[in-house]
């Protein structure tokens, strides 16, 4: 998998997560227990002890422990199991919460940030955690020669210093989202920032790394000196890399593992019938899309782009390709799992007549070539065939070319003018748009170039008034929806399954796998 095309899925809030957190907050005191799903009632008392086994896909023999390199789901989870970030997020609201940083303040229009760090934390080898470790970690990832996947995220940082026992970060431009940027999963705090050995995995997290056989098996034992008592309930954790879908399901069905990830929609309903197994569908920020390059003929014509956007049956795609496990997209890359997301933009629907009208207006004749591959997303070829059939109703002739999965991200995506693709979620709307809609971004995979949009993006970034910010993001979403080359029919849910013996799962809007923190949050019942 391409390691820059961060493949880590993001997830959103669903009803069960809301109920679980409401219960935790005490709102459920008067509610009937019958209204709550079974796990919410059992969720009251974490039990300690036991050996948790997770069967995950997305691990490779080429994986290494340096958090700057983390890509697939396995290493994403491994990082959260041994490490801590300075800032964490609330599973329900997605706001920044203290972790190794106790509190923070900003000044100078969100340009200078001061983080007060915890003083009672020790690394797994017994040495105390100091401000210097945080400074070195952030420097290692943000150094201009760094190979860290977080480099792009941290480009706006000017200096990282220790000052008066606190961590002080200065930015080139004001950014109200800095604490959220520090929640990136690559930024696990390492002893001396990993400068001595980036692969040491000596962190402050709930479990200590015991053995690491990349692409095979990774084991952890409980960190007895954990600074946070409300996590890490089991004695030991074992991650088994099982990349084969059927093998993963067999491992769960036979009780050899407690949890598996990345189910296909087709298996979800079958698996939910099995006794002792619960399927988990978590709303996500990730989406499936078709990308047109707005600067390349014939896609440089907005009438043609609009015709194609109207010529796709989103409902049908959601139900057939995703088996209903997802939500409709509206051609802008943000949904309500993001903070300050617009809510009242009308949903674009399939309208062959309107599509035919715009297609005629565009003056384009002849077939349109769409490149596709199942590397783009699960079911991308099916989705493309469906799109082809939908468009035919509007008199638009889409020709499909199936590209090899190997090399799709190097040779097709962001290179060819019309192709299928996907994106995982990002922490904030600002990061989402900066990555793919800003004129100067190298990953502007729809070649959307609008100076007005760029200006609004920077304005929203430094804006500390939430209402003004929300209004700006709404306007930006409409610009992307109506003018860009992004066809976004569906947001996909993240599909996992667990044994009933594993309790305490929390749906986290931050990301899949309970935002990577499944091992620190769940416990086992006998």
């Amino acid at each position, binding site marked *: *998998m*391409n*390691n*820059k*095309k961060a493949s880590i899925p993001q997830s959103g809030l669903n009803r069960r997560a809301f109920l679980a957190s409401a219960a935790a907050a005490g709102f459920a005191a008067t509610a009937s227990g019958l209204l709550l799903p079974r796990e919410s009632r059992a969720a009251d008392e974490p039990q300690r002890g036991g050996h948790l086994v997770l*069967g995950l896909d997305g691990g*490779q*023999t*080429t*994986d*290494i422990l340096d958090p700057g390199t983390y890509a697939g789901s396995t290493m994403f989870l491994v990082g959260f199991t041994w490490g801590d970030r300075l800032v964490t997020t609330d599973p329900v609201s997605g706001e920044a919460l203290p972790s190794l940083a106790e509190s923070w303040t900003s000044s100078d229009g969100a340009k200078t940030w001061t983080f007060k760090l915890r003083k009672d934390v020790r690394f797994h080898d017994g040495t105390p955690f100091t401000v210097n470790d945080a400074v070195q970690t952030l420097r290692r990832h943000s150094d201009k020669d760094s*190979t860290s996947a977080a480099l*792009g995220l941290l480009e706006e940082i000017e200096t990282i210093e220790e000052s008066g026992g606190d961590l002080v970060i200065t930015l080139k431009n004001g950014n109200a989202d800095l604490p959220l940027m520090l929640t990136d999963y690559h930024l696990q705090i390492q002893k001396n920032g990993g400068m001595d050995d980036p692969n040491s995995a000596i962190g402050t997290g709930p479990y200590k790394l015991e*053995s690491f*056989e*990349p*692409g*095979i*098996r990774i084991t952890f034992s409980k960190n007895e000196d954990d600074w946070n008592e409300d996590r890490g309930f089991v004695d030991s954790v074992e991650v*088994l*890399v*099982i*990349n*084969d879908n*059927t*093998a993963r399901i*067999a*491992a769960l*069905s*036979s*009780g*050899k593992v407690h949890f598996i990830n990345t189910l296909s929609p087709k298996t979800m309903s079958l698996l939910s019938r099995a006794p002792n197994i619960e399927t988990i569908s978590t709303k996500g920020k990730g989406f499936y899309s078709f990308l047109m390059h707005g600067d390349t003929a014939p896609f440089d014509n907005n009438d043609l782009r609009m015709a194609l956007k109207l010529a796709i049956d989103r409902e049908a795609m959601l139900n057939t390709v995703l088996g209903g496990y997802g939500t409709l997209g509206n051609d802008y890359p943000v949904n309500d799992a993001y903070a300050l997301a617009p809510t009242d933009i009308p949903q674009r629907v399939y309208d062959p007549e309107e599509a035919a009208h715009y297609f005629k207006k565009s003056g384009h004749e002849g077939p349109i070539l769409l490149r596709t591959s199942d590397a783009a997303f699960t079911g991308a070829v099916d989705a493309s065939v469906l799109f082809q059939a939908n468009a035919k109703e509007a008199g638009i002739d889409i020709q499909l070319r199936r590209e090899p999965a*190997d*090399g799709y*991200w*190097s*040779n097709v*995506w*962001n290179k060819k003018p019309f192709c299928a693709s996907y994106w995982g979620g990002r922490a904030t709307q600002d990061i989402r748009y900066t990555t793919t809609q800003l004129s100067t971004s*190298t*990953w502007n995979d729809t070649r959307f170039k609008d100076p007005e949009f760029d200006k609004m993006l920077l304005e929203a970034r430094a804006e500390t008034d939430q209402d003004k910010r929300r209004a700006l993001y709404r306007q930006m979403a409409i610009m992307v929806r109506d003018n860009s080359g992004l066809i976004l029919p569906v947001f996909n849910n993240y599909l996992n399954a667990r044994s009933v013996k594993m309790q305490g799962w929390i749906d986290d809007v931050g990301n899949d796998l309970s935002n990577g923190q499944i091992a620190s949050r769940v416990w086992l019942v006998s």
Partner: protein
Amino acid sequence: MTDTQQTPSAPVDAPPPGPIVVMRARFPMASRIGERIVLGIGLLLASSILIFAGIEILPGDFAETYLGQAATPQAIANLRAEFGLDQPLVTRYFDWLLGILHGDFGTSWASGQSVSGQIADRLGNSLLLAGAAAVIAVPLAIGLGLVAVLYRDRLIDRLINLVSLAAVSLPEFFVAYLLIMVFVVQHPVAAFPATVYDSMSLWEKLQTIILPVATLVLVVLAHMMRMTRAAIINVMASAYMETAELKGIGALRAIVRHAAPNALAPIINVIALNLAYLIVGVVVVEVVFVYPGMGQYMVDAVTVRDLPVVQGCGLVFAAIYILLNMTADILSILVNPRLRHPR
């Protein structure tokens, strides 16, 4: 494949015989074995060139894959220089070859680990799996083949044929899933996933790999069994077998003493091919059972264009294949009575 069925054709009357011809005439067996070994080394060299060239023409390269789409031309150039990719092809080939002669397969670009060490681990696992499967499959196949001949065209023969053909007709992943369904999901008796790791004892490892071993046995059994059966039946039709029968020895003894030794050569070849397959061709079984063998290691490396690993694995696979086929050839020569005694 081999041509050991031919008799060595020393040109007895051709004047004047050169020294090589004389050697061949005097030591037909030793010289044929020598030939095989030289041929094997030549083949290995040729395949090393093929592997190197083949990987060279793969689209995409590690620097681009590693750096992602945001890679600047300068960063790609730096990375290529670091890995010596800016050197000419021939220079790189000989550097690589020289390293391998010293047992050094280079360093993995993706993980920075020594390729030799990683291959050693993985190869050990692959050999364990293949070895366990072979220890069961080979005697079983030959035994069943003999039984099938003994009860030729009777119920037992038909049954053995039917079952083994059915097993070989099913794709290996399907056999694997069937075994998992029955012995893991429905009747949880076997270990799963079959992941082995360093801290396990040999006994624990063997217990863990029961299912993949069973799958492999089912997959390779039919081929060897049918070849045994066919080869022996072929020999059974010859005059000396009739003589054996006429002099009154039992059917089993006739097969074991007289037919089997003369039918060995083709059987050995089929066994060698199947052993090679067990080591180099079982990536699907490895994936399904989550077994850390060579196949998965190589496939992962190909995905990220980790060339030293791909080249190393490719060469090891080629070497195993050549070695096993060479051994089969040599064994065929050794068991050929006509070659055992120089004329």
